[in-house]
């Protein structure tokens, strides 16, 4: 079960004229449609415009707002930055850069043989090049009550801030999940001096990636910071009538007025099943962001990108990767042959403890994982190898090893 944004057909039932009147032939009147107005799609549009003042660009964006930084949402929630500061573009930026911005719309169908897309408002837009930058949806609990919060879109952040503002202090809150978003909830709730219980299905955070020592290091750090930790606790149900009062798990029940849910993200690809695109966990692309279909590129969180360092197609799922993939797709659309060769990195600080993931940390893809450090030493590094070459690493409280490991993965 996933949560999706608004279907704009309901909000905007009157079709407006197509931004593209007729299909173009050459590069100069090339028509490029970008599906998705997040960082990947917007970076692609921006790079295209930097490189060519003549190509026609349209962004079809499900969200109604200009580009904003999801990474800044926790800072906004903690009162470190104003709401307006999370926006990276304003509404005028699109017109100023001669980019057709179609907010509040989804693409329902891609016809690659006839090179057009069909929008939720019924419009059909022809394209010469298509870029799919659709993003991901948050996985949702099977039930809902007032007090349940997610943290992916700006609307989620506004909703969470409203819930927080309504709570007395002290107040018990919960977090369900063991990944990046669950960490953000912990940091946010701690900022408001809430009493926090965190529950997750596995033995620790990122249980498919981290070893026992790394997991235990994080769990102990949370406990030391007065967080109640419930490992291996499977969600059963929400408690409460109209408003949340607690959570039932198969391990223990706990009281909470707010439950922050961070149980993962899924690429928004279900609508692509009959598109002719090669789809696995995401849309499969090579290191040049090209799909199996001519003239169609995929980038960002919907793309399963060939990692040149690990030889593995995978969803990279970071802001920086999405942004650079957008730029590379733009360069390649305009005839270059650029390669995405970044070693991806994802960083998180959980109540003062630094967690860093570098490169490919898929345990199933790696054929060896070496561990340095230990729980007793207060820091653990895992290095993932494929055919004796380092392809990824995890660093818990071991920032000083980052440069060395990055160089090793880069080869």
């Amino acid at each position: 079960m996933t949560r999706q944004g608004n279907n704009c057909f309901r909000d905007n039932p009157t079709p407006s004229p197509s931004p593209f009147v007729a299909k173009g032939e050459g590069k100069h009147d090339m028509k490029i449609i970008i599906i998705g107005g997040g960082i990947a799609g917007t970076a692609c549009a921006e790079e295209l415009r930097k490189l060519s003042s003549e190509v026609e660009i349209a962004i079809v964006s499900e969200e109604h707002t200009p580009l904003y930084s999801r990474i800044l949402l926790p800072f906004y929630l903690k009162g470190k930055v104003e709401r307006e500061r999370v926006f990276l573009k304003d509404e005028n930026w699109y017109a100023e850069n001669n980019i057709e911005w179609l907010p509040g719309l989804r693409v329902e169908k891609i016809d690659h043989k006839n090179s057009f897309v069909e929008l939720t408002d019924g419009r059909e837009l022809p394209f010469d090049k298509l870029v799919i930058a659709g993003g991901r949806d948050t996985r949702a609990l099977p039930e809902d009550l007032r007090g349940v919060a997610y943290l992916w879109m700006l609307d989620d952040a506004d909703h969470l801030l409203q819930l927080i503002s309504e709570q007395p202090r002290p107040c018990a809150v919960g977090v369900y999940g063991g990944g990046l978003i669950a960490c953000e909830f912990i940091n946010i709730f701690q900022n408001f001096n809430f009493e926090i219980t965190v529950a997750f299905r596995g033995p620790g955070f990122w249980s498919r990636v981290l070893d026992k020592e790394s997991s235990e290091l994080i769990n102990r750090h949370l406990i030391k910071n007065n967080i109640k930790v419930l490992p291996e606790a499977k969600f059963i149900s929400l408690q409460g009538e109209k408003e949340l009062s607690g959570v039932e798990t198969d391990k223990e029940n706990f009281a909470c007025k707010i439950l922050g849910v961070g149980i993962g993200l899924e690429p928004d690809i279900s609508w692509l099943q009959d598109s002719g695109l090669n789809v696995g966990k995401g849309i499969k692309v090579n290191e040049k962001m090209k799909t199996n279909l001519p003239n169609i590129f995929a980038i960002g969180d919907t793309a399963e990108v060939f990692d040149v360092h690990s030889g593995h197609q995978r969803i990279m799922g970071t802001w920086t990767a999405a942004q650079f993939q957008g730029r590379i797709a733009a360069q390649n659309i305009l005839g270059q042959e650029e390669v995405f060769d970044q070693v991806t990195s994802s960083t998180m600080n959980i109540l003062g403890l630094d967690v860093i993931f570098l490169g490919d940390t898929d345990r199933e893809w790696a054929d060896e994982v070496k561990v340095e450090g230990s729980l007793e030493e207060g820091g653990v590094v895992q290095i993932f190898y494929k055919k004796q070459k380092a392809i990824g690493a995890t660093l818990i409280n071991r920032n000083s090893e980052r440069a060395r490991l990055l160089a090793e993965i880069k080869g």
Partner: protein
Amino acid sequence: MKIKIKVDADLCIGAAACVVVAPETFQLNNDNKADVLDHSEAPNGPAYEREIEVTEEELQNIILGAESCPVLAVFVYDEAGKQLFPR
């Protein structure tokens, strides 16, 4: 030309986008924050703020590095103190 570059260490999350774009100007330190360098050097030790002499091409690349930061933690000023980025 001379410019001033400043990293807001409270905002910096170590995403390293600036380092990828402009490694001669930005480098992550052991606190997982971006230090500012002067052409790969750190005269007078590590710093979050530094005035450096750059060419127009270098300036544009530093601004691209600042634009790439997901939390907009990098500020760039000209010699007169005018903020060049964020705009």
